[in-house]
């Protein structure tokens, strides 16, 4: 929360945490200082279930460029899978 840059979105799907698969209902996307990644700033994505225990979380810290690459990959896969290419 050093930057205050955070976007939440509702999601539906599943994530795999330390105790196995669990249902997801929220993705929290922030741009902040990472805990672990060797970068000054990162895009931090937490896939969460608000009603489950706190460890029901899948977290990634991506360098800004790799976050952009991920967005492109997601859009490309959606485009191909849904036949809109």
């Amino acid at each position, binding site marked *: *929360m*050093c*930057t*205050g840059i*955070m976007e*939440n979105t509702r999601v539906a799907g599943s994530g795999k945490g330390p105790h196995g698969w669990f249902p997801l209902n*929220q993705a*929290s996307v*922030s741009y*902040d*200082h990472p*805990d672990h990644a*060797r*970068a*000054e*700033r990162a895009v*931090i994505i*937490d896939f*969460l279930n*608000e009603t489950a*225990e*706190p*460890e029901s*979380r899948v*977290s990634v810290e991506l360098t800004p460029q790799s976050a952009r690459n991920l967005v492109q990959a997601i859009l490309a896969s959606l485009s191909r899978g849904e036949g809109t290419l």
Partner: protein
Amino acid sequence: MHMYRTDMYEGMIAETVMVPGHNGTVINAYFARPLGSGPFPGVVLIHHAPGWDEWYRETTRKFAHHGYLAISPNIYYQFGHGAPEDIAAKARAAGGVSDDDVVGDIRESLGYLKSLPQSNGKTGLFGTCSAGRQTFLVACRTKGFDAAVDCWGGRVVMSQQELTPKHPVAPIDYTKDLSCPLLGLFGEEDQFPTPQQVAQHEQELKKYGKTYEFHVYPKAGHGFFYYDRSGYRQEQAVDGWNKVFTFFEKYLGTAD
């Protein structure tokens, strides 16, 4: 800076305790203190955005080692209990804690320290990262602290677009109410806050005739005290810690 000899006695106790929090809540805190009757100065540590974690426990003990009654309240208690990084993620998703909650929690910890029979009556405030911002905020909105140390607190300067119901006022706008001397440590390569924002804050402190020291370290970014993160800068961290203890000794005194 507090020095000690090889032949002196030293002991401390460090444990989790329950203390009053904002609005009549009871929250957990990590409390480390030197053994003995003192009197000792006190320090309240506000933990950073990564959570109420091991680094803050270590730092709490570090202050006790240097002769302070040191307490670090869990300001994320409202998000439940679990691994610190998981609770920090819940806090992050919720947009953090509100400024009112932090001010209330820290005010209660200040009262707790001052009520102790070992207290010398002087108390400092310390925070890094998001807690650097909160340290400045609390030092402006609370009376009773005798010195405050803001380490690289971002968002002291905030645009209108950054204000939220939880953070409705930019801390810089409280500068005229700053109630104690302020030490600020920053990295020249940091972007949260930028050197320009630090300079803007310094201008405001000058404008209101506040007692402060700001140090902006070259070749350092954000969080340069954190030895377990890539932003650690040994030379700047050693000098920064010396400045912290010198500053607190000046305004809080030392243990007898």
